């Protein structure tokens, strides 16, 4: 069931009504049933998978808490069960391909078996939630004693498919608070849902058309076109995923629950570390807490820290998908994070004047530079394979030369008049870039905390009109559903 489907338009109000009409003690079972209905509406059989993993973790993790010896071993077994499940469903083909290629180099022609595996929706997200739970209990936090509470933690339908990756210490206690209905929940929740749908349907889906054509036929576009297409992808993936997150948060809020934010204006980050504090926050904090720190974090030597950083980001890349281009994207993030640390150290060593580093010019130049570094990374992420990534990147690096003899005739985006999004890109991209700064300014002025009543209503009415007019019959799935 997709958030942007008619099924969800019926499902969510039904759950909402039943939830608030049901006495508090029956709400968790109700949400659990609703969440399994939501999940199994796609492939009923995979309900067994999430249930099986839930049961395994529920039974195993208390042994970690109770163990006086072999605590680490039990944790290892628990984590392994989760990772093996993820590995089978997500990385089996990738591993077989890698083995086949390696054997091919050795002259062995291995006929790999065909496994007929379909990636279960949301598996990467709920597996990470289980691992977080096991590690937190290992670190001394309390186990969840009630099975229904525990079962709802990974399956909670608003966050089930593409996060945000929740923390059980934040989520489970909310289940015990006998929340009373407030109209604020509806107002705030629906505002988030409408905003999320607009981000997905009005912006991301339209940009997708440009991006799809650009990455499939890079040879048909000039270097300057490719930069615009890459910018378009940067905004597409942001609005797609942020849109999903808004709908998830809005849906949760309708039921009186809060789930963490996932984005904080990532494209105004002034360096790559700052970017990762603003982008997919629930994943980046998970990677920090359950991969980077266990690997040793920043506790060792500089090179050990860099090694840990690189491994964390490379595996983070692979988490997104079983393909070399995702691995390359993760590795690229690791390299630029390391480069950023080196740069900061060098600046300190050289003794660059602090006044310069804190100047507005330096800050905005850093924002623009960081955005472009991120965009180059997105090429690995979006390309279907490394060959295409190479083609697109080589086009991007030809841009300085193309700028020297620039003429509008070079721009294929201006030649293509249908779909209209192509020439419109020249106007839309600057608007999207500027809007990021405007929103940041409004955040600073705390405008969002109490926007005038009339503004809120006008925005909602406008969004309802726009969504009903421009929602296509079929919208592409959210990008993060595939992970």
């Amino acid at each position: 069931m997709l958030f942007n489907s008619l099924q969800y338009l019926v499902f969510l109000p039904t759950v909402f009504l039943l939830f608030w009409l049901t006495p508090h003690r029956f709400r968790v079972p109700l949400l659990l049933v609703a969440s399994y209905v939501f999940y199994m509406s796609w492939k009923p059989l995979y309900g067994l998978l999430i249930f099986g993993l839930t049961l395994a973790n529920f039974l195993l993790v208390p042994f970690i808490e109770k163990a006086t010896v072999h605590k680490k071993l039990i944790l290892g077994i628990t984590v392994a069960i989760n990772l093996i499940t993820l590995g089978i469903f997500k990385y089996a083909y990738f591993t077989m391909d890698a083995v086949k290629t390696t054997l091919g180099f050795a002259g062995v022609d291995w006929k790999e078996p065909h496994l007929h595996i379909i990636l279960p929706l949301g598996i990467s997200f709920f597996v990470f939630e289980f691992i977080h739970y096991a590690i937190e209990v290992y670190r001394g936090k309390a186990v969840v004693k009630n099975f229904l509470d525990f079962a709802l933690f990974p399956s909670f339908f608003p966050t089930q498919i593409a996060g945000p990756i929740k923390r059980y210490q934040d989520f489970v206690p909310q289940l015990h608070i006998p929340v009373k209905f407030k109209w604020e929940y509806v107002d705030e929740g629906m505002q988030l849902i409408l905003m999320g749908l607009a981000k997905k349907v009005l912006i991301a889906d339209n940009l997708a058309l440009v991006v799809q054509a650009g990455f499939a036929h890079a040879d048909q576009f000039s270097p300057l076109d490719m930069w615009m297409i890459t910018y378009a992808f940067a905004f597409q993936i942001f609005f797609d995923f942020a849109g999903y997150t808004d709908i998830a948060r809005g849906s949760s809020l309708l039921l009186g629950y809060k789930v963490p934010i996932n984005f904080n204006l990532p494209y105004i980050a002034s360096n790559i570390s700052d970017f990762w504090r603003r982008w997919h926050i629930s994943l980046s904090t998970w990677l920090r807490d359950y991969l980077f720190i266990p690997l040793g974090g920043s506790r060792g030597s500089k090179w050990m820290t860099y090694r840990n950083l690189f491994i964390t980001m490379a595996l983070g890349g692979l988490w997104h998908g079983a393909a070399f281009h995702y691995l390359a994207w993760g590795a690229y993030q690791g390299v630029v994070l390391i480069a950023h640390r080196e740069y900061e150290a060098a600046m300190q060593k050289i003794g660059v004047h602090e006044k310069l580093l804190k100047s507005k010019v330096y800050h905005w130049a850093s924002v623009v530079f960081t955005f472009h570094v991120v965009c180059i990374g997105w090429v690995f992420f979006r390309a279907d394979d490394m060959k295409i990534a190479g083609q697109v990147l080589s086009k991007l690096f030809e841009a300085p030369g193309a700028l020297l003899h620039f003429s509008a005739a070079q721009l294929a985006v201006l030649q293509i008049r249908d779909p209209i999004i192509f020439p419109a890109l020249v106007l839309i991209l600057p608007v999207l870039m500027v809007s990021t700064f405007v929103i940041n300014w409004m955040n600073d002025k705390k405008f969002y905390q109490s926007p005038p009543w009339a503004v809120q209503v006008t925005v909602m009415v406008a969004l309802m009109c726009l969504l009903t007019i421009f929602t296509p019959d079929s919208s592409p799935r959210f990008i993060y559903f595939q992970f």
Partner: protein
Amino acid sequence: MGILRSKFFISVALFAAVSSLFAITKLGNIAPTDFPIHTWTGWAVEDFLSDKQGRPQFVFLGSSLVLVPVSGVDADYLKHPIDGSHHHQSQYFEDQFKKQSGMQVKTFNFGLPGEMPSDAFLITKFLLKGEKRPDVIVYGVGPRDFMDNLLPSPAATDPYQYLSRFGDVSSHRHLIAPEWDQRLNLELGQLFYSYGHNYDLSVSSQRLATTALNELLPAPKTDKPFTINDRRVLFPLYKPMEIASKEAYFRPTTPKERTFDNSNMVEYKKRYSHLNWRTFTHQMKFLADLMSTARDRGTQVILISMPITDLNRDLLEKGTWDSYKKSLKVLAQSKGASYIDLGDSKQFALSDFMDTVHLHSGGGMKLLDILAEKAAQDRRVMSALDATNSSIAGLKGGQL
């Protein structure tokens, strides 16, 4: 805070008011004859309604089962390629019928790719009337028209998108939207103008945006302008049904060039698997309503069970072929239509087909010969023609 103070519910109320205002002012409304995308349907409707067409005596209805052989025959017969977007007659049939009956008739081929009986019904109900009412409708059907389980609903075809704009389809809403979510979609469209008319509104706003952008950012002049073919390479899934003028040609063929290809068996296997009886009965209902509508207007229907290959027929689930044939026969009898059963006729061999269901131009010629002969011998057909034509020669009488 009560519901009356909820910002969301106030917004919903205001949205309903705004939507009603749109409805009153008919904001962005575009005429049904205004085709932003020209598909086979658009070209055919536009041509049919144009003054140059006049009133055809015979209208052919059907899917590609009809379109392909009828147009292919004319390419062979006229000995030049014919543009599928503009050629909507059967010259060959007109000449053959004249030979058989002595009567000069005018034909219009409304065969469209993917046309279901629901689409044929809409063509009949909304277009084949008044000054454009034909005397005879020739409707060629195949099992796919009633058993395509890949089709989510009658509203999912390209012809439906355009034909449903010509009139009120609410009397058939239970057939058009059989699933609850399809029905909800339809009802929401009725309730909120901005949703029900979102096609009109989005087309109108796109046109406005295009005009503004052409002013603001005109396309730079280049030696090689961007064409529809370039667009097809870049966005194969964008406007997939669109065809440009002079893009789809039926070319003359020689018997040697007419080869058989059975590769569409896989596609038909999927279409026929797990027969949905509801689709079957709903499409039969549309066929029945088509026949009733035509009869009420004095138009005679010739229903043809189109020839298909044994290979294709064998893909059907057990019993479905018999149900299909029996339903057609009973329906034709009850509605006073003429029925030509060629479904498993021995008159057609595998060599008459280009694939497992479509006749090639050679097979098409055979089909039109049979049709011309049977129509000329059919008293009801000739009477229907007689009612509007004063001079009829060669009425041979007899039923089909």
